[in-house]
């Protein structure tokens, strides 16, 4: 099927780039150039090699709270406790703040609409918004974009959203949990990619994006671009765009499984000839692989690492695509494979088809499970997000906080260190901070329960509090700019709290909270550029 792709934010842009590259390598032209990338920081476009320049849309560059320049990093920073934090993404643009991301996108709707003119939605079968759900732009701007697309497009709109790994910050987990909460009701279906499942080793996630994105692109293309190869060969049981749309039509979260088997044609041919010479072949297996091989392949795809790991029996609908030489795929295998899916997933809504690739030397099975509802990974992220929220709430009584924030292994150490640091810090720092924190916390709790819209505005007290909550609870990311944002707000107390917390984080990052705890400004200085120094000083002054 033909798709319009919209990459939003850093991760979204990278993945979009990879998908366009995959178009070339697989010969399946499924976008027809209907692509756009949106970013709040120009740097995000630098990595994109395949996205045409006129399709790179920078938004928010006039917004007062958006930073355009990349913060230059201390080389030491890369080796600190948080190697996986995509620092470049979060330090520029909206600084990892989804509310700000949403505000910027809302403010820039005229610009976004203008760029949407470049994409003809009548030429495509669906639109896909691609974003990192842990990022400020990815989560915030994509939510606004999705709303906009839904109001102007008749085609279904899906989201391909990257969930942060366990080693990424609490803040990103919180943003992702909120993004899922926002995007799922807005989108026709959401296909999350779990970075935690897809990272190959403990190397920094930054270094693995490319391989992860390649794997994801392979799966995405096998599913959505099936049959878009040129020239398209006619298939007996072709998967139509309507089949994909119907499968995803139930909404919720969807996941993709994938497996291939080598046909190994030459070997097979030789062996077969040899066997026949020796009279060992009694059947006539010349063309098709045996049915069992196909059935096994389908089973492997179902059992493979899914883009979003889940309990497969919770799937609502299922779609199977077998790609390969049509003369080599046993129809009985195709049918039993399809039936296996029905059996294993417990749903009767299984659509299956093939994509003829006459010259291929492999057969590929791609399985789409839609509306999976048993997703442990999402519960984990939600729990972590909730903990991050309450960690902020309970921040001052340090002991309690330790108990509650300890969650993910990486984060656990960070959090507890942070808390300790905070405790130490609080002792040294003024007592005002704690009071301020408590006040903010109260406000935030009230607001979260009320389910209010967080607009990211800095004028209303409540909104500011909410803003700060998000920033604050995830403050272990390098949020130097955040101080800036917070301190520009007129609520001095809130600003104060944020600054304080960031300082803690910085200590943690330095790995030596005890020694540096007594000097906030020094800690800031070590970690980030000189910018935060000024607001830091200001706020300190203000609270004093």
């Amino acid at each position, binding site marked *: *099927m033909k798709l319009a792709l919209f990459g939003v934010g850093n991760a979204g842009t990278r993945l979009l780039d990879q998908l366009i590259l995959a178009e070339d390598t697989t010969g399946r032209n499924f976008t027809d150039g209907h692509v756009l990338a949106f970013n709040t920081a120009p740097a995000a476009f630098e990595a994109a090699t395949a996205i045409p320049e006129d399709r790179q849309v920078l938004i928010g560059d006039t917004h007062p709270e958006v930073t355009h320049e990349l913060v230059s990093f201390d080389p030491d920073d890369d080796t600190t406790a948080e190697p996986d934090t995509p620092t470049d993404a979060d330090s520029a643009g909206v600084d990892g703040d989804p509310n700000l991301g949403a505000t910027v996108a*809302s403010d820039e709707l005229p610009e976004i609409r203008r760029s949407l003119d470049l994409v003809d939605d009548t030429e495509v*079968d669906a639109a896909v918004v691609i974003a990192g759900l842990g990022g400020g732009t990815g989560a915030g701007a994509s*939510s606004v974009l999705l*709303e906009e697309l839904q109001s102007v497009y008749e085609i279904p709109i899906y989201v391909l959203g990257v969930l942060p790994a366990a080693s990424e910050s609490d803040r990103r987990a*919180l943003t992702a*949990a*909120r*993004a*899922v*909460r*926002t995007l*799922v*009701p807005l989108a026709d279906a959401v296909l999350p990619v779990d970075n935690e499942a897809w990272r190959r080793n403990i190397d920094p996630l930054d270094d693995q994006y490319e391989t992860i994105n390649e794997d994801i692109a392979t799966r995405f293309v096998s599913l959505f671009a099936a049959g878009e190869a040129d020239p*398209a060969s*006619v298939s*007996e*049981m*072709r998967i*139509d*765009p*309507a*089949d*994909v749309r*119907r*499968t995803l*039509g139930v*909404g*919720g979260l969807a996941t993709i499984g994938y497996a291939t088997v080598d046909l190994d044609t030459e070997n097979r041919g030789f062996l077969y000839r040899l066997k026949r010479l020796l009279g060992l072949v009694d059947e*006539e297996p010349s063309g*098709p692989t045996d049915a069992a091989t196909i059935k096994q392949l389908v089973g492997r795809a179902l059992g493979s690492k899914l883009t979003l790991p889940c309990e497969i029996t919770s799937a*609502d609908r299922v779609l199977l695509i077998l790609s390969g030489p*049509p*003369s080599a795929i*046993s*129809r*009985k295998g*195709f*049918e039993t494979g399809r*039936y296996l899916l*029905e059996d294993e997933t417990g*749903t*009767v*809504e*299984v*659509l299956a088809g*093939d994509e*003829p690739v006459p010259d291929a030397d492999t057969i590929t099975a791609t399985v789409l499970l839609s*509306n999976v*509802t048993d997703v442990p990974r*999402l519960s984990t992220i*939600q729990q972590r*997000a*909730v903990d991050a*929220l309450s960690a902020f709430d309970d921040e001052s009584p340090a002991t309690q906080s330790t108990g509650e924030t300890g969650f993910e292994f990486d984060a656990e150490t960070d959090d507890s260190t942070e808390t300790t640091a905070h405790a130490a810090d609080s002792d040294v720092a003024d007592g005002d901070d704690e009071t301020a924190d408590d006040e903010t916390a109260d406000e935030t709790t009230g607001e*979260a*329960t009320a*389910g209010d*819209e*967080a607009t990211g505005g800095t004028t209303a007290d409540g909104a500011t509090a909410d803003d700060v909550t998000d920033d604050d609870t995830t403050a272990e990311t390098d949020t130097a700019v955040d101080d800036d944002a917070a301190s520009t707000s007129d609520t001095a107390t809130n600003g104060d709290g944020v600054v304080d917390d960031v300082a803690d984080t910085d200590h943690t990052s330095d790995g030596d909270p005890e020694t540096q705890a007594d000097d906030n400004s020094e800690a800031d200085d070590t970690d980030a550029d000189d910018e935060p120094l000024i607001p830091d000083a200001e706020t300190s002054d203000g609270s004093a």
Partner: protein
Amino acid sequence: MKLATIGVGNAGSKVIDRMVEFEQATGRDLCRHTLVINTARTDLAKPKHVPEDRRLLIGETHKKAKGHGVGGDAAVGAEVAQTEIDEIRRIFDDVEIHEVDAILVAAGLGGGTGSGAAPVVIEELQKMYDEPVYGLGMLPGKYEGGRPALNAARSLQSFVNKVDNFIAFDNDAWRSRGQTIEEGYEEMNRELATRIVTLLAAGEVDESEVGENAMDSSDIMRTLEVGGVSSIGYASTGVDTPDDGLLSRFSEAEVSEMESTDAAKIKGLVRRAVNSRLTVPCDVASADRALIIFAGPSSEISRKGVESARDWLEQETETVDVLAGDDPRPNSETLAAAVLLSNVTETPRIKEIQDQAVDAQNTIEQQEAVREEEIESLITDDNNDLDPIV
């Protein structure tokens, strides 16, 4: 018989295509009008023997179809056909209905377009014409799964209620090992086309070459008029080609001696036709009426053989309503017997499909009942502490 044939959906279109192919290859002229209707543009391009202007794409403007099929959803298939009923009616304007004896609508019952749109088309045809409308439906195999079974079970009801007779074909009975995706259902479609054309093409030649034993269109229609579900049996055997001068003179000389052998051969052929794979397996005794067509060179069809074959079938079907007749094909290299078992009521496969459909419907209803709730609970945390971004 002379037919206007309409294929709805991918499977239906393919069968019509194969029927035209078969009749062209055997010098028959059964399908006077062909038309294929589909919701997927790509599938519409597949038939080789249906003229471009006899292919109708429906649902191009439908929100869910858009010319890309209906995703196996019979409800959408029906909706699309209903919406474009004027378009469908318009394309029948070209059909000179007085030139045909009946209309045949072919569809796969497991898919969305065939099972959904075909009954709508049939309903319209019944309103427009007095001629009988027959259905030719492919039943999905067990391994095609619950949704196709549900489509088929529901569509079968519409079909049988609306058509004058429903000829069923069971994919499962015709499934075989070793077929590839590429071949797909080609082999099955060919087998089905052979049977349906051999049966219905009898009596197509009205004036010339009408032997006294020749089957007439009205005989076939009489057998079909009881309605219900029907099954076709078929068997063929090679014959000496008449233009093979020397040999044929030989056989003419030996005709009288061969008479008894020929009779046995004819009867044997009919036995084989009934006992071989029927288009839909059924209890032969449950048939309401039956009819045998012998298609081949008249010289090969022994009168004695025909009589004894008819007697045998009368016993088998436990009905006296058995017609037998010839479809003379002087140049044919084969002698074929096609047996129509009309209104068979014992068809285990249909019962199986219905059971599978009931299970599927229950599963689908259960899923629907909890769907929204499950999504909501999935995306929110336990205490609903997390708020959406926009």
